[in-house]
């Protein structure tokens, strides 16, 4: 009973936040609302028992992406959204409605939430549910699959992300040191 109340209230907050994000023009407020949106969806994921997804949503959505977007605003120094006069919402609206209706139609074929007879539960899931504790000793099955059964796959992903991070730091960080060095030299020349 209380689960239904939590779901309804959180989804209502989600809808309010989304509409407010669409209607607002103050970019800083929009980014703050993005943070709230991430926390709300993370809470919904926890209610649906998808703890791993909720964890990622909170770390990436509420943590990193908020900071990245605020940093972008600080760099570009644009605080307000600009409205161009000629904007006709009818074609995008029609595309969105048709796409949404198709997706909802597609969900009709999906088995019910938590259905034990669903094909996804019958393939390899019984093996993991039975064997993951004796094999790995990790209480959470999803964590056991990600960190133990697919350990090398996860290691590869981490290496890819790490390499990308180093590349970005080399590109951005190097440029900034040069610019500040040039500026300092100019300041010295001025004095």
């Amino acid at each position, binding site marked *: 009973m209380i689960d239904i109340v939590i779901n309804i209230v959180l989804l209502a907050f989600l809808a*309010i936040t989304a509409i407010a994000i669409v209607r607002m023009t103050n970019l800083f407020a929009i980014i703050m609302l993005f943070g709230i949106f991430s*926390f709300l969806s993370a809470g919904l994921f926890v209610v649906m028992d998808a*703890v791993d997804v909720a*964890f990622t949503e909170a770390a990436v959505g509420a943590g990193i992406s908020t*900071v990245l977007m*605020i940093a972008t605003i600080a760099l570009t120094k644009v605080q307000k959204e600009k409205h161009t006069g000629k904007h006709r919402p009818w074609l995008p609206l029609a595309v969105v409605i048709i796409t949404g209706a198709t997706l909802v139609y597609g969900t009709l074929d999906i088995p019910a939430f938590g259905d034990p007879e669903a094909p996804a539960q019958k393939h390899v899931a019984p093996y993991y549910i039975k064997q993951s504790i004796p094999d790995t000793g990790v209480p959470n099955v999803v964590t056991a699959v990600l960190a133990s059964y697919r350990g090398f796959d996860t290691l590869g992903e981490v290496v890819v992300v790490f390499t990308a991070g180093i590349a970005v730091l080399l590109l951005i960080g190097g440029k900034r040191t040069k610019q500040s060095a040039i500026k300092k030299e100019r300041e010295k020349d001025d004095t």
Partner: protein
Amino acid sequence: MFTAAILAILVTMGLALARALMGPTVYDRIAAVNMFGTKTVLLIAIISFLSDRTDLLDIALVYALINFIGIVAVLKLVVYGNLYSSEKENPKQLNATGNDN
């Protein structure tokens, strides 16, 4: 009792959301988001006791940490305009860009 606590937290979440929507200044919105994160932590903690899965408490702790670090980074960007300077007068001082996010 858990039900009453959850309802109270949901009401507080609604109030924080209203402040984030209306908030005239930047700091109102930041405080609202920070409070919303705290309420999410509390909600997850109560849900974990309600469904007898106390391993969710670790997730709630991590949420609290993410919330804190994120708000500190946002405040630093709002006040200084970047993530790497520690004083307003000396904005080109390069240190520890990666530690803040």
